[in-house]
């Protein structure tokens, strides 16, 4: 900062010899060789049955199943995130009734395995055979069987979403807690109510903390969808590839096919996360005027004040308060 350009040019630049890391190169070469051996070996191994992998990876049944898996993931996550935000906000609410509801919900849905929950959702139409409208414990006015209502796909979505919302609630709560209490106070002092403060001030700032673990949850959800056979819903990727492997009496190539699809979808989702993180990083990052320090900045402001003599708050620079 203090060096003026003329001073800098006086001294010839010194030659810098970069630190070398020869062992890194050795390690990388060894690693590459090992990978090459594995790949060449794998390519020749009968058990992997690569022709079948190639045959089924773009099989319509498989790509349809991948579509279902993606749809399950997206729907369950969207509902899960929305419910999770509502639950987290309820837990932070000054209203003790809302607080308790959220706590009990979390206790149940986090405290039982998702597989067990999914089996329960599958048995819903067995437990509640009819939907009755009317006064409880009296004869119903209207009654219709629940089988019409419950379809395996939507039960899978609901089952996954409700379980997910309990975890999302804690992630969102962590985000809310990460926001400085002064933010809440400033918004309150401006006359904003609790709800508006949450929506406009606290949640947008919490998003930065919420998004990375949520990305984790999305990827985790993608794989958890393979459990919906408990409903049973069997059109998703894992069950579909298993069905095909039973047909051809060889599970290995179809496992590879399923893995390829899971990896492909995960990669796409990671790209989405990158853009979301960028969106919510507003206000943190590089200064637009990287050169100008606070001193020059305040000086330009003072100049501006002096020119603005008309303003009611014209700064009088005669006697400084200190």
């Amino acid at each position, binding site marked *: 900062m203090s060096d003026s350009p003329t001073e800098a040019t006086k001294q010839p630049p010194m030659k810098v010899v970069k630190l070398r890391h020869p062992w890194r190169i050795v390690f990388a070469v060894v690693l590459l060789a090992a990978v090459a051996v594995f790949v060449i070996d794998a390519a020749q191994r009968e058990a992997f049955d690569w022709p079948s992998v190639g045959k089924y990876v773009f099989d319509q049944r498989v790509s349809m199943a991948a579509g279902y898996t993606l749809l399950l993931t997206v729907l369950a996550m969207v509902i899960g995130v929305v419910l999770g935000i509502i639950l987290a906000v309820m837990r932070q609410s000054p209203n003790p009734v809302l607080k308790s509801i959220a706590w009990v919900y979390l206790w149940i849905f986090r405290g039982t395995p998702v597989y067990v929950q999914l089996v329960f959702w599958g048995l819903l139409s067995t437990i509640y055979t009819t939907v009755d409208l009317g006064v409880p414990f009296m004869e119903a006015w209207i009654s219709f069987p629940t089988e019409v209502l419950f379809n395996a796909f939507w039960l899978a979505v609901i089952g996954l979403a409700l379980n997910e919302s309990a975890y999302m609630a804690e992630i969102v709560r962590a985000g809310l807690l990460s926001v400085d209490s002064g933010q809440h106070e400033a918004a309150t002092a401006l006359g904003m109510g609790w709800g508006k403060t949450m929506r406009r001030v606290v949640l947008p700032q919490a998003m930065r903390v919420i998004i990375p673990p949520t990305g984790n949850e999305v990827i985790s959800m993608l794989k958890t969808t393979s459990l919906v056979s408990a409903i049973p819903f069997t059109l998703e990727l894992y069950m579909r590839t298993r069905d095909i492997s039973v047909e051809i009496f060889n599970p290995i190539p179809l496992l590879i096919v399923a893995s390829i699809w899971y990896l492909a979808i995960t990669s796409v989702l990671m790209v989405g996360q990158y853009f979301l993180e960028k969106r919510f990083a507003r206000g943190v990052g590089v200064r637009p005027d990287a050169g100008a320090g606070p001193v020059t900045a305040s000086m330009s402001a003072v100049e501006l*004040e002096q020119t603005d003599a008309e303003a009611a708050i014209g700064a009088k620079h005669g006697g400084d308060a*200190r």
Partner: protein
Amino acid sequence: MSEQTTGAVGEGTATTDATTPMVLAEHVSKSFGSNEVLKDISLEVKRGEVLCLVGPSGSGKSTFLRCINHLEQVSSGRLSVDGALVGYREAGGRLYEMHPKDISKQRRDIGMVFQRFNLFPHMTALENVMEAPTQVKGVSKAKAKARALELLARVGLAERADYYPAHLSGGQQQRVAIARALAMDPKLMLFDEPTSALDPELVGEVLDVMKGLAKTGMTMIVVTHEMGFAREVADTLVFMDGGVVVETGDPREVLSNPQHARTQAFLSKVL
């Protein structure tokens, strides 16, 4: 504000006119658990008056300031702003707790500036100033923007309107915070140690804006350690210690000729 005076029936709080004090505290006490931080405070702030609250940390001056816009609830006593009790409605000799919505309405008319600025970091300076008028008062975006730009110009930051708080110096952030509070057209401004978190070289620019504001006739209560500012700008100086008002008076007199031993001890350290 008519909605604030409705239901406020009682000695001296029935009507609002030019003689009604802007802030009237009568025997106000505040405890956090067993810790009594405000003890029987009685104070009056007239319209257009600039009152500086000074005292050692932990003396209760910030707590008192926060009680005025009900960020803290008083434990006993009566506290009213512009003739209306803060946070309560009085009827039939009883106090009724107000709904949070009504308390929010009261706060709209009271601007507050914090020690740590508390600007919204995800919004630009301009958006910070526009937020409350558009969200709370329902002012149109275009109108709010014009007004916000005018206010930012008043605090000397017109050219920084599109900067995020992280890209502004402390002094600039605090000036944006003042503009943000002014955007709600408050009748009373509260300043909670507005320069205490600033680098010494940036204190002056914030105090200049506050001096200008005082000249417009704004009623201001300023918790501060800046004795020079108090001497120059304040109409009244209140010295607090241990939750009580120790001394009140004209700042020039109190600062140069303190009557109470505790005031003398404090001033000998800070002046």
